[in-house]
């Protein structure tokens, strides 16, 4: 038996609460997000980045678009164990579950620790209600 620290226990946890229960929004809707951070003992946060982004997934290289981005470097604010942010969502691109191209919207909370490492927590939500593409062809 070794006494190495358990990496899972050392990872912080970030809980995000959306303003809608089903995490589904229409274009131009307002979104409000509240998050809570649970740090392991001894972990010190020097900065927090909060963002609302879309990214592509699938066969192609990943593309990303930032709708909202905020970096908190004030130590007192960064070390606060909770926070909230939000805004008005854009008209596009809508969430899309294609075959080789997928578009996902998500909220990210990224914590930067004093030790130099960072930890990101990503929480996906839907913008619009486009049905998933099907393959083989469906007319």
């Amino acid at each position, binding site marked *: 038996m070794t006494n190495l620290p358990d990496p899972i226990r050392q990872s912080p946890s970030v809980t995000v609460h959306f303003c809608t229960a089903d995490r589904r929004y229409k274009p131009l809707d307002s979104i409000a997000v509240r998050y809570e951070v649970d740090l392991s003992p001894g972990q010190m946060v020097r900065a927090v980045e909060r963002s609302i982004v879309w990214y592509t997934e699938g066969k192609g*290289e990943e593309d990303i*678009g930032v709708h909202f981005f905020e*970096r908190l470097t004030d130590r007192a604010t960064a070390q606060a164990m909770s926070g909230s942010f939000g805004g008005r969502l854009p008209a596009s*691109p809508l969430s899309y579950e294609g075959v080789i*191209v997928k578009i996902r919207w998500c909220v990210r909370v990224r914590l930067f620790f004093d030790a130099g490492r960072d930890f990101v927590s990503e929480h996906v939500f839907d913008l619009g*209600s*486009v049905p998933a*593409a099907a393959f083989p062809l*469906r007319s």
Partner: protein
Amino acid sequence: MRLPRFFSKKRGHRRTGSQVWGSVGEALFHAALVVAGVAFGGLLVTGIAVPEWRINHDFVESRGTVVGRGLARRSTGADGASWQPSIRLRYVVGAETLEAWAFDGPRETDRSRALERLDRTRLGEERICWYDPAKPADVVISRGYNWWMWALTLLLPGALLAFGGAGLFRSLGRWGRSEERQAAAGLRPRDSLADEPTLTHGHPGVPSCDDLVNSPGTILRYRLPIESPESWNLLGLGLFAALWNAVVVLLAVNAGLDLLGGRIDWLLLAVLVPFVVVGVAGVVAFTRSLVLATAVGTTQLEISAHPLRPGGTYEALLAQGGSGAFRELEMSLELEERATFRQGTDTRTERLVVWKSPLGSWQGLQLTPGTRFEARATIHVPATAMHSFASEHNAVNWRIVIRGRPARWPAFTRAFPVVVFPPAAGDPAA
């Protein structure tokens, strides 16, 4: 301390290189360019620019007497050499009389020309000279600037410094920044091989349709531009055939000159034969594609409105020109996904049609020259349809596709891109 991993898992299902090591490699590459630019620039400045500047500004003018002459030989390779006329000058520096060799004009690769130039200088004649006050034994008999050398001094190291410096600045700007922060600041690395889409203002990720609405239709509002892969194939085949056969002509001329001179270069002939075969095949393929592209006539498509909206209904007019019989002509609305990815050093693009709706089909057509077949169709965009989307490496494209099967020619496909906007605010489809 824990080193970053060389490989990390990308979203999707492929394993790709580590971003951290990639950034380190990119920064090192650009830093190496900067170092090379500084070193190369330093060598050129100290070896060429500074000495030339000193000759024109610091050297002291004097008069000298030619007391000797000769050719300076410099080896330029295994057997080659260059020759530079040189004269030995006697000149006075303060209270001292010195003698030193000075080059007289540029180098010559032809020794007889160098000798001819040297003969123009007579022993005992007086020449203006300039000597280095810090080292009076260094003397020259001409001054001025070699502007080509100065341009080279600035251009090559300047390009290395500009390219390397800009890349290093970008790499350092991205260092330690999250991908969201990079994207928000516009610092994400750009893929030089990927297309940068033109987007619609106010609709992030939706491609612009400006190029699709600048041509009015004859009956309906807009005439859509064609996006035919056949045109690109034709252009590619034409370029290939032209370039390949240019090489063939060069080789054939050389072989012909050899034959006229009574020599036969068997190696050249052996190379020429397969080149001629490929060249002829290229011309045949191009001619065939050209005939196919022009024989079936042009296809035109007009539409009643643009851009399209989910839930919207539009009218389309198909016009097919040409002559002869068509077994079938069909029109459909299609949704195509396009993904661009790197595979090793290649950039590949995969396309997949994920939705298709037939708009019309016409059989047994007989076209006559001077007239065109016209048919109308109704386009209905589903209320829950995905809008057109374009980013650097991914796209969701809507297009109206015409597929034809002429009786005497191979089948053809012609596509007309359209842009579908997201549902308007307040639209129940939103």
